[in-house]
């Protein structure tokens, strides 16, 4: 009984922290429509800053609390809104996701630079009123836990009053319902958005400072990940209801604690329990009432003109020829890097298809790469093509299964369901089937008889050929009937439905195809690495992948190649210049942050420049007699 009480108390305390941080997410989302994936990173930085102030610089606790939670975090949140989030209003969901993912990666990189993980064991934060505890029934509860509960209750009650009574709070609710109308009646949506970001960041910081002492030594990843789980209660609250969010937080806290406490150690379930919140998230998303197909958004993705078949064939030929030359010039590690870049390029192409063409967001694409590598490892002995085929089938089938559940979701909810799936797979699958503790799984290289693909050079050229074929195939698809269908699906699902298109089926098909392509990339990637570990395919990498694809220009085959090579270079750069390891994430994060202002990515900029020059030299745009307003003039 006392054991049960102890777990319950721990669960409730954990739940309170989830509730706190999730409330911050909800407050920001409901006034701005943007779910901040960097929320956990804000908590983490706040906890480190608080440690720096109190432990390192001996600033009094109260002063440090005020500095971090009441000044630092809100100012940071308000700046975020002004600089990054404002241009994101009304932009496609993948951009909104990726910019905050960029914030996450940027802050992670920054924190790793500032507080080297090597010394992490020495960084501990004392609990509040350390050493004091209270005996309740048969359970000792330390004062810190009591502080957590009191603060959580105070915040919940405070927010409740704030939204029902205060002028700002009521205005925020009005903005949720109808920004245009609220603006007409005197509310200032930007001010309110700024305030909600400030409030969200303050709650994140508060959660971080309360959570860190409970986790022992400060750990950048652990802190960030824990708070990222706040997404789960936020979704349970349907990103709108604070009371439901708080309840969701408590449920998650209790569920996780009981799972740790009562499940037999070493069992599959116990290992998988880390994935529990994300499993709950997936279920919550699937059970969520289906959003109505809403009409009223005129969009046209800015998609590059697809080159003609002859041009793309010439480009592919040049690319393969260049690859052959490069294979003669490079050797050893460098050749390996080039190969990794090219085969990962195929995975990047799978997102060009899914996100660039069809406008669907996957936050778990690396999972399908990983299952592809797994299939190759088990069915592709001695490089048998059967393995590569199996990789496509297995990953494609898995993609289809996820899609069956996910296709009725749209936008952010769809993205979250892929995130939940990928995150759960990290623990349920990758950590368990890639050698003991994910130490590694050996994969043979795909061997095409007669092409000498067993050598490093040959394998590189093989990868380049497959990339070229996939690229030419995608471009052909883009120009044709199926490409128009995907563009139509992206621009207006409701119009498609009223024209007789089964949207769910179309989405299912494109998800399956994209996952299969990612699986093929995985088979090749595994062969290139020889030994793959669970770390290769973690959700975090999926986020980086999506981010890079958008940076390269989400509908560009060439952009995918360029960013894939960049991605392949990461480990190399790190090896040669260790201090670069975090700077590269800082830079990638920074790059993503610019996407709010520049949604087409770097690749998009380049092609636009090219198109512009082509327009200047000859082609003229027909003039329109009946002027009138353009639909999305500002966006193009």
């Amino acid at each position, binding site marked *: 009984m006392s054991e049960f009480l102890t777990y319950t108390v721990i669960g409730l305390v954990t739940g309170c922290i989830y509730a706190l941080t999730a409330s911050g997410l909800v407050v920001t989302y409901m006034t701005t429509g943007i779910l901040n994936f960097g929320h956990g990173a804000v908590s983490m930085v706040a906890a480190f800053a608080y440690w720096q102030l109190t432990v390192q610089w001996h600033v009094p606790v109260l002063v440090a609390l005020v500095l971090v939670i009441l000044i630092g975090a809100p100012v940071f949140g308000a700046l975020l809104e002004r600089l990054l989030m404002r241009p994101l209003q009304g932009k496609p969901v993948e951009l909104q996701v990726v910019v905050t993912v960029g914030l996450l990666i940027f802050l992670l990189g920054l924190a790793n630079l500032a507080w080297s993980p090597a010394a992490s064991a020495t960084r501990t934060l004392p609990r509040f009123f350390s050493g004091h505890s209270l005996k309740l029934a048969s359970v000792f509860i330390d004062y810190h836990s009591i502080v957590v509960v009191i603060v959580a209750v105070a915040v919940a009650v405070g927010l409740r009053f704030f939204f029902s009574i205060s002028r700002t709070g009521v205005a925020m609710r009005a903005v949720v319902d109808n920004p245009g109308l609220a603006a007409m009646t005197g509310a200032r949506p930007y001010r309110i958005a700024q305030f909600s970001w400030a409030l969200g960041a303050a709650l994140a910081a508060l959660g971080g400072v309360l959570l860190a002492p409970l986790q022992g030594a400060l750990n950048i990843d652990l802190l960030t990940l824990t708070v990222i789980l706040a997404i789960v209660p936020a979704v349970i609250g349907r990103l709108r209801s604070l009371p439901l969010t708080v309840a969701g937080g408590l449920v998650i806290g209790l569920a996780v604690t009981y799972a740790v406490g009562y499940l037999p150690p070493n069992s599959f379930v116990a290992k998988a329990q880390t994935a529990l919140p994300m499993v709950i998230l997936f279920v919550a998303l699937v059970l969520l009432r289906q959003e109505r197909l809403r*009409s009223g958004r005129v969009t046209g993705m800015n998609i590059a003109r697809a080159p003609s078949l002859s041009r793309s064939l010439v480009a592919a030929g040049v690319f393969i020829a260049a690859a052959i030359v490069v294979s003669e010039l490079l050797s050893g590690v460098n050749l390996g890097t080039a190969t990794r870049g090219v085969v990962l390029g195929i995975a990047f192409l799978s997102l060009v298809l899914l996100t660039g063409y069809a406008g669907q967001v996957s936050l778990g694409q690396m999972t399908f790469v990983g299952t592809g590598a797994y299939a190759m490892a088990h069915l592709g002995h001695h490089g048998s093509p059967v393995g590569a085929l199996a990789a496509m089938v297995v990953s494609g089938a898995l993609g289809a299964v996820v899609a069956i559940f996910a296709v009725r979701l749209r936008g952010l909810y769809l993205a979250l369901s892929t995130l939940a799936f990928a995150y759960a797979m990290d623990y349920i699958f990758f950590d368990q089937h890639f050698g003991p503790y994910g130490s590694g799984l050996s994969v043979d290289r795909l061997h095409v008889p007669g092409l000498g693909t067993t050598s490093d050079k040959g394998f590189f050229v093989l990868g380049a050929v497959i990339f070229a074929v996939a690229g030419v195939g995608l471009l052909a698809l883009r120009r044709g009937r199926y490409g128009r269908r995907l563009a139509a699906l992206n621009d207006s699902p409701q*119009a498609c439905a009223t024209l007789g298109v089964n949207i769910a089926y179309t989405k299912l098909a494109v998800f399956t195809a994209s996952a299969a392509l990612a699986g093929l990339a995985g088979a090749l990637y595994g062969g290139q690495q020889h030994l793959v570990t669970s770390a290769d395919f973690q959700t975090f990498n999926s986020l980086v992948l999506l981010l890079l694809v958008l940076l390269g220009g989400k509908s560009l085959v060439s952009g995918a190649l360029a960013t894939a090579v960049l991605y392949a270079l990461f480990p190399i750069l790190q090896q040669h210049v260790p201090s670069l390891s975090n700077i590269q994430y800082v830079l990638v994060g920074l790059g993503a942050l610019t996407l709010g202002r520049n949604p087409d990515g770097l690749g998009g900029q380049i092609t636009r420049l090219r198109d512009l020059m082509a327009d200047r030299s000859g082609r003229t745009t027909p003039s329109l007699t009946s002027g009138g307003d353009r639909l999305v003039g500002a966006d193009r």
Partner: protein
Amino acid sequence: MSAPTADPTDGAKVASSGDDVVLTVADVSVSFGGIRALDQVSLTARAGGVTGLIGPNGAGKTTMFNVITGLERPTHGRVRLGDADLSGMAPHRRARLGMARTFQRLEVFGSLSVRDNILTGAEFHRSWSRHADDPASVTDEILDRVGLRAVADLRVDAIPTGMARLVELGRALATRPRLLLLDEPGSGLDENESEELGRLLVELGHAGMAVLLVEHDVDLVMRISRQVFVLDFGRVIASGSSSEVQANPVVRAAYLGTQPANDLDDRTVADRGDA
């Protein structure tokens, strides 16, 4: 009964079945959180002509379209297309039975050209209908029919709103519907263009199609509709021929207000300017 041929190029075949009821809305109610958007609405649309649906803003016209096309589920009531009961049917299955619509708040495929918007509609039709013609030739014919030939190669998000509405109309026609639902196709058009639109709709009617028209330009509706339904606060307050409806005192009070007819005309023109 034999389904009327919807092919607008073929008028002769349909003339005989010109008066069949294509759309039947029976007793439909929709509530949004306690507010009744539609209250026991019944209406019909017949093949071979335009049926007008008018009413002030917020009367429930677009909600009606959403219910008919399956984007909105009614709390009560039924919708039938020809002999088929559409209750609970997904939007794409309804479309395959022969209905197509345009949207008040545009739903064009903004990243495609005008031609490709219509072509996509024709290709969709081809993907589910065995009787579909070659998409390219259908597209060609429609481009001329709705007068978009000159802008065929422009991206749709770069053309004026009025034209984009015509693109939606063309795209809907590309699926060869029996029932065409038009949600304010005339807003954003100048007087000449709107006259042109009126002619086109009458033509489509003569070719055997049932056209249900929601439009703020009351003049246009009265000129071309064989029958007009008037919605106010989610209820049908009047129905009948144009002249009957115009003479109806309830309509004048509720919808047209007490203003004389001239003022009304001014107002609709102003409305169009705003849209």
